[in-house]
C-alpha cells in the first residue's frame, strides 16, 4: 500500500505542476498524424484510453464502418485484475466500445491462455464480462482446430506457425498487452503478447524465443497497439504472486508502431521498477526481441523518430 501511495502521490504532484500537460502535449507535430500517444497519471486505464484515442485522432481513424475488429488482450493467467497479470478489463471494454462507436461490424476478442481452463481465465480476468457488456464476443483460443498453418516468409528461425484464425488477416487488429515482468522474456509487452496468437509456443521456447517473437511480428498485421501499464507487475511475472508486486503506475501507450510501443514500455518498466525499488530496471538492450524486431523492419525502437504526443493527466 505504501508503495502505491507513493506512486500515486508523486504522480499527482507531477501532474499538478503548472504547464505540465501543455508542455508535453506541445511536443507533437500537429501537421502530421500522431504515431504514438503516451499517457501518464490518469484516474483509470479506461479514462486514459478515452483521452489517448482522442489525441490519436479518434478510433474512426483505424476502424472503418463495417470492419471486423479483433482485439487481442493478454488473458494468460487465472489472476484477477489487481495482480496486473492480464490486461485491465475496463480498458478492454472501452476499446471494444470505441470500435463499435466507430462503426465496427463485430469486435472479437481472444487469447491462447496458459493452461487449459481458458473459459475460467476469461472470467477471472474480468475481461469476458466487460467485452460482452460492450457488445463484443469472446472466442476460444485453446483448441487446435482454431489454428491455421501460415508461412512466415520473413522469419529467421520461425518459418511457419499455426496461427489463430482471428489473427489471420483481420480488417483491424488491436494488440492490447499488459506491461509486466516476465521470468523468461524479462519484460513482456506488445511483441511478446503475440505468443497468444499461435498454437505451438513450445517451438518458440526451444528455438530462440526472442528471435521467434521478432519473426512472428513480421507476419502479424497490427493496426494499433495499446499498452496497459496502469499496474506494472515488477517481479514474479508473468503469472504474479500478489497484488503488491504490481504497483499502480498509471501509464498507457497507444501506438501505431509496435516496436516503439515496446521500447517505450521497457523504459516505463525500468523507471517504475527504480521508483519502487522492486524488480530489475532492465535496459532496452537486455530485452533482445525489441532490437531483433527492429532489425527485421517491423518498426523502430527509436521513439524520437516518431510523432509522439505526451499527455499528462491530472
Amino acid at each position, binding site marked *: 500500500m505504501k508503495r502505491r501511495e507513493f506512486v500515486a502521490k508523486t504522480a499527482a504532484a507531477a*501532474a499538478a505542476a503548472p504547464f505540465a500537460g501543455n508542455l508535453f502535449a506541445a511536443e507533437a507535430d500537429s501537421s502530421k498524424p500522431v504515431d504514438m500517444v503516451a499517457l501518464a497519471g490518469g484516474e483509470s486505464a479506461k479514462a486514459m484510453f478515452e483521452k489517448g484515442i482522442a489525441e490519436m485522432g479518434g478510433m474512426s481513424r483505424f476502424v472503418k464502418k463495417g470492419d471486423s475488429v479483433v482485439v487481442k488482450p493478454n488473458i494468460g493467467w487465472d489472476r484477477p485484475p489487481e495482480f496486473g497479470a492480464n490486461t485491465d478489463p475496463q480498458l478492454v471494454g472501452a476499446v471494444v466500445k470505441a470500435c463499435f462507436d466507430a462503426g465496427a461490424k463485430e469486435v472479437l476478442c481472444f487469447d491462447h491462455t496458459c493452461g487449459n481452463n481458458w473459459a475460467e481465465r476469461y472470467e477471472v480476468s474480468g475481461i469476458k464480462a466487460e467485452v460482452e457488456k460492450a457488445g463484443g464476443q469472446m472466442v476460444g483460443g485453446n483448441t487446435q482446430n482454431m489454428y491455421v498453418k501460415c508461412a512466415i516468409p520473413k522469419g529467421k528461425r520461425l518459418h511457419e506457425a499455426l496461427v489463430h484464425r482471428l489473427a489471420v488477416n483481420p480488417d483491424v487488429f488491436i494488440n492490447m498487452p499488459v506491461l509486466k515482468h516476465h521470468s523468461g522474456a524479462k519484460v513482456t509487452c506488445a511483441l511478446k503478447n503475440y505468443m497468444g496468437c499461435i498454437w505451438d509456443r513450445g517451438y*518458440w*521456447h526451444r528455438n530462440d524465443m526472442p528471435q521467434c517473437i521478432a519473426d512472428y511480428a513480421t507476419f502479424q498485421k497490427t493496426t494499433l497497439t495499446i499498452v496497459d501499464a496502469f499496474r506494472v507487475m515488477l*517481479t514474479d511475472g508473468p*503469472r504474479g504472486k500478489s497484488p503488491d508486486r504490481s504497483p499502480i503506475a498509471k501509464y498507457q501507450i497507444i501506438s501505431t508502431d509496435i516496436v516503439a510501443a515496446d521500447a517505450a514500455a521497457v523504459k*516505463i518498466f525500468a*523507471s517504475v521498477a527504480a521508483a519502487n525499488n522492486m524488480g530489475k530496471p532492465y535496459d532496452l538492450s537486455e530485452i*533482445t526481441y525489441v532490437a531483433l524486431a527492429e532489425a527485421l523492419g517491423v518498426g523502430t525502437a527509436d521513439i524520437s523518430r516518431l510523432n509522439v504526443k505526451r499527455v499528462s493527466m491530472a
Partner: protein
Amino acid sequence: MRGVFLKAARIFRVIFALAFFLFISAQFLDVYNDLPKWYYKYNPAWIQFTPSFLRAVSGAALASAWVFICLVLLSLVFGRAYCSFLCPFGILSDILRRAALLPSRLPLLRNSALGRKCGRLFGKMSFAPARNIVRAAFLLLAIFFVAMGWTALLGFIDPYSLFGKVAGGMLHTVSGYAVNVLSDVFYSFGIYSVEPTAGSVAIPVLSFLVSILILIALFVASAFRGRIFCNTICPVGAFLGILGKFSLFKMRIDESACVKCGMCARECKAQCIDFKNKTIDSSRCVDCFNCASVCRKDAIYFGLGIGRGKSRIAANRAPVGGVSASAGAKGKGENALSCDLGRRAFAPRLTGLLLALFGAARADAQGLRRRRRRLGGGDCADDDNNVSAFSLPGNRPDKRLTVPPGAGSIDNFLEHCTGCQICVAACKAHILKPSVGEFGLAGFMQPFMDYSAGFCLDTCHDCSKVCPTGAINFVTKAQKRNIQIGRAIFNEDLCVVKRDGTDCSACGEHCPAQAIEMLPFGEKEKNLYIPHVHKEVCIGCGACEYICPVVPHKAIVVRGLAVHRQAKTFSDNMRIYRPERDTLQKKPSVGGEKTGKGGSGPAGANPFPF
C-alpha cells in the same frame, strides 16, 4: 385398492429413477465443468453402495459409515428398493430394456417385422431359478478385492463403477466431442456462441472400447434377461438380496386372489416370480412394482413380512420344493441344492468367512504394498525414499506418477479407487485419464495424472469434490495449494538455456507456487536465466513439465511422492537471486536517454522516461 397404490408406486418409481439417473449423469455430461456448487452438496455418487462401503471400511469413525448404515437399514425395511431407485447401472439396465422393447411398443413399428421380432425376443420374461452359488461367489470375490486393495478389479463387477465407466467413457467423451465438433462447424461460419471444451476430452482408445463393451453387454443382457446382471454378477445385488430376504416389506402374492395367469411373471425383469407356486423370491425382487401394476386380480401387494406369521414364510419357502421338483425333472438338481444352501446357512457362514478373510488379506496386502514401495523408490532415491513406484514408459525414468491432492498417498488412492471415472469427467484441466497399464494391470482404468495433456490447476479441487470412494478425500482450494503430491526434478543438461544458450523460462512462468526461481546463468552479457527448483515449495502440479518445450525428454519432470506432504509457502527470504541488490548499485544507468536526472521514477518533472 392396493392395485391402485402399487400402480402409483410404479409410476413414482419410474419418475424417481429417471430423475436420479439424470442427476447422477449430470456430472458426466458436464463438459464445461460448471455444475453449480449445490450439486456437490447433494452429490448423488456419494450415496452409492460400494463407495459408501469403501468409505465405511477405510474410516475408523462411524461418521464415515453413516451412508452405508442407512442403505442397509433401507434394505432391511424395503428390500432391494436401492436397485430400482438409486442404482444407476440398474436404472440404465431398465432404460436399455425399454429401448430394446421400443420397436414393439411404438404404434408405427409395432406391426413391422422389427417390432414383432423385438416383441417376440424380449417381450416376455419368465421365472428362472436363483443362481445363488454364482451370486455368493461374486460377493466373496468383491470382498476379496476390497480386502486385497484391488478396488480397480472390484470396479468391473460393482454396478456404480460400471455405470461410471459407461458414463465417463461414453457419455462424457462423446458429448465432449460433439460439443467440439459443433463448435468447430459454427466457428468456421463465424458464429462463436458454442464454446469448445477447455482441454481435450480424449481418453485412451482401450478404455473407450471397454466402455462400449460394457454398454453392449448390458444391452444384450437386459434385452433378453432383464436384471440378470443384478441377480448373478452384481455383488451389491447379492448382499442386498440377503437383506431383502429378511426385509420388513416385501412383494407378496395373495394366494386366495391369484389365478395363476402368469401376467406378473411375464413382466418381472428380475425373473423372480414363480406364479405356479405363487411365490416371489425376495432376494432377487428389486421392488419395481411392474408385476403389481399388471395384475388384474390385485393379487400382488407390498406387505409386511412380520406379523403375517409362519404361513407366509412357509409359502415363501415353498419354491424350494417346487423348484427342485420341477428342476429335478429337467435334470438340474444342483440348482435346488444351491437354493437350499442359500436359504439356511448362507448369511451366517458368509459373515464369518468374510471377517476372517478380510482381516488376514488386508494385512497381507498392505505388507505386499510396502515391499513394492521400497523396491519402487530404490533406484531414484529421494531424501527419504518417499517416491512413487510407478514410472511412465517412454518418459524419463525419474519421472514418477502422481495421484491427485486429497488422495493422501498412492496406496490409499489405489486401494480405494474403483475406476468409476467421475473424477476424469470432473477434471477441469482434463489431465485425469483412465490408465491402461500405467498403474499395472491390477489398476486398469484407475485414473492417472497425465501431465502431457495439461497440469493440475491451483484454482480447482473438483476431483476431491466428486470422488465418492475415499480414494480422493475432500480438500479445500486453499489446502490443495499446499499439498505436495510430487516434486519437480530439473535436469540442467536438457534445458534449452544451457543447451542452446537462449531464453525460455516456460517452467518458471507457469509455476503457481513460485517453486521455480530463475537464476542468472552463464556469461553476464548473454543475460540468461536458468530455472532452480525450491523442492520443499514445489507442489507437483505438473505445470512446468507440461510446458517444458524440450523434446523428446522434458528438462523438468515431476517425481510423484508415495505419501503426500505439506509444501512450504514460498517466502522472499528463500530467494537466492535478488535483482533489487543489483538495481541499487547501478541506479544511474536506469531507464534510457532522459531519465538520468536523479532517478526520478515515473513522476518527476517529466513523467515519461523517453
